[in-house]
């Protein structure tokens, strides 16, 4: 019954959606727009799961179905309920992720402009056509604030200390990975966590609360938090 209802709602959603993305998107422009996705998602040759899943071959893939990525329950359920990524579903999801999958951990405001969505979808489709991937087409996508000392990345964090320090985080960031208004920070690859925290610490990322919180954490403390949160279920 519930499943049937979801389908109905979804169908109504598509039918009522005033503007669908244009079919013919601009791949070059889509690549530029994708930069805002790249702090969490990789696509292209050698793309790996990071904070978000890698996006090679996303067209035609059931939502929440990569074996080696820890999806939110909401996204897995969406896939089981029948959502497969295609032009229509990606268009709705990218307009406002939480409108399609209410419990998704993807903390992204969405792309309001239908042309922006069309372009980024066209870009993604260039990694999904048959043959599935086009290795020579594009460089592997990278985050923008990734240039930190390898010695910092090499620090092995103490998860017990991380568990204590995490008390400061869980006042706002929900320990179960829930995200409403404040992003989820659980199950991030440790390296991404460290990179993000150092970007706040160096004030490359702009949020004032996070600049303040990260600003007084030592390199070891950031590593400890990364070690703790990466395995928090």
């Amino acid at each position, binding site marked *: 019954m519930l499943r049937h209802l979801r389908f109905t709602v979804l169908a109504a959603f598509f039918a009522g959606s005033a503007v669908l993305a244009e079919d013919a998107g601009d791949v070059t422009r889509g690549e530029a727009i994708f930069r805002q996705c790249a702090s969490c998602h990789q696509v292209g040759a050698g793309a790996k799961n990071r904070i978000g899943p890698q996006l090679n071959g996303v067209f035609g893939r059931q939502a929440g179905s990569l074996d080696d990525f820890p999806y939110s329950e909401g996204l897995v359920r969406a896939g089981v309920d029948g959502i497969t990524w295609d032009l229509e579903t990606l268009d709705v999801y990218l307009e406002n992720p939480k409108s399609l999958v209410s419990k998704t951990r993807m903390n992204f405001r969405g792309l309001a402009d239908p042309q922006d969505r069309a372009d980024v979808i066209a870009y993604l489709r260039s990694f999904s056509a048959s043959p599935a991937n086009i290795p020579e087409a594009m460089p592997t996508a990278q985050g923008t604030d990734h240039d930190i000392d390898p010695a910092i990345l090499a620090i092995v964090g103490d998860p*017990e*200390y991380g*568990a*204590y*320090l995490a*008390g*400061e985080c*869980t*006042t*706002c*960031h*929900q*320990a*179960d990975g*829930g*995200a*409403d*208004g*404040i992003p989820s920070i659980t199950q991030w690859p440790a390296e991404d966590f460290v990179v993000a925290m150092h970007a706040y610490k160096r004030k490359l990322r702009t949020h*004032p*609360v996070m*600049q*303040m*919180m990260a*600003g*007084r954490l030592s390199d070891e403390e950031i590593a400890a938090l990364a070690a703790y949160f990466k395995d928090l279920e």
Partner: protein
Amino acid sequence: MKMNRRSFLGTASAAGASLAAPMAFAAGHGVPHVVVVGGGPGGATVARYIAKDSKGQIAVTLIEPTRAYYTCFFSNLYLGGFRDIGSLAHSYGNLAAEGINVVHDWAVDVDRDAKAVALAGGGSVPYDKLILSPGIDFVDGAVEGWNLSAQNAMPHAYKAGSQTELLRAQILAMPQGGTFAMVAPPNPFRCPPGPYERISMVAHLLKKENPTAKILIADPKESFSKQGLFEEGWNTHYAGMIERVGPDFGGANVSVDPDAMTISIDGDVNKVDVCNVIPAMKAGRIAQIAGVTEGNWAPVNAADMSSKMDADIYVLGDASHQGDMPKSGFSANSQAKVCANAVRGALTGSTVFPAKFSNTCWSLIDTNNGVKVGATYEATAEKIAKVDGFVSSTGESDALRKATYEESVGWYAGITADMFG
């Protein structure tokens, strides 16, 4: 479920333990016993973190009279119509399920020699470590003409729940063009931006329901938290509606007459329709009964929140006198984690990590118009001392104000999950 004798006995003794709750854990019984008085942001958090992290090595009892806790934070948003009252209510069911012995009763006495807390319902609970997180009570006679028996005529609404509902009902019943008055409290008090966020929310409600109504504030303080931000917001969104009388014009010289519904400011008597009296505050009474207060508050050591009067008693949140942190739910939650870590270390020898504290207070001025102030703190020999801080700016973009409000909604979900599981 198939019953056999062993499982039946097991069930029976578990049930017996929870029914006989207060006396079940005798001190010196092997498992050390922590008793927490007060189930708000300080008490619920410290109970939960000690129980969760000690993994059965410490027995935790939480004494809290109410079965549903209404958060003070976000209660102003209920007044403004942005939340319903039910969304502020939280039960202690998850804490009980996580192994905390939740006792719904009043703690009425503390025997520091025998190390036991007496309950209003009879019996007492022994402790190895006692954590008091009782919040605030009001100073008797702080506002001439007002006492607790007048709180229906002139609500304080500074402990959330029925008082908050009463205040909203009174605002909605105001005659067109009527006057809402607030007697603001002197420092220090719970939630420094609270009275001024409340003014914003009342103004938001009145602008919609009663646009010719007026708001009058009698304030004994020269200045207040986020003043520039609030005054900018009031001028922009509620122009001509709000008048604040500061101490220069007698805002500290106030008396009220709840029968006549009048408020006198420096001898000038005003007839009003709603009067929100927020009196001067002091530590919740059990802290005074326990003999750990000095003046109105309970002095604590910054490193672990232990009382300066008794090494086996800790005081969290609004009731404590700790230094630079504001009295807020966020602060109490932050202090609770430092305290939980220290208490576990003292009782089980677990690693005690250095104290780190933080606070952020969000306030809503109008729809999608949020502002915030926050700081980080460290423990010094004398006090909890501020390290770094920030505050929203005047003239911020609408998009940033909206994002700040959405962040506050996320924070509410985060901290209540952190407190109540």
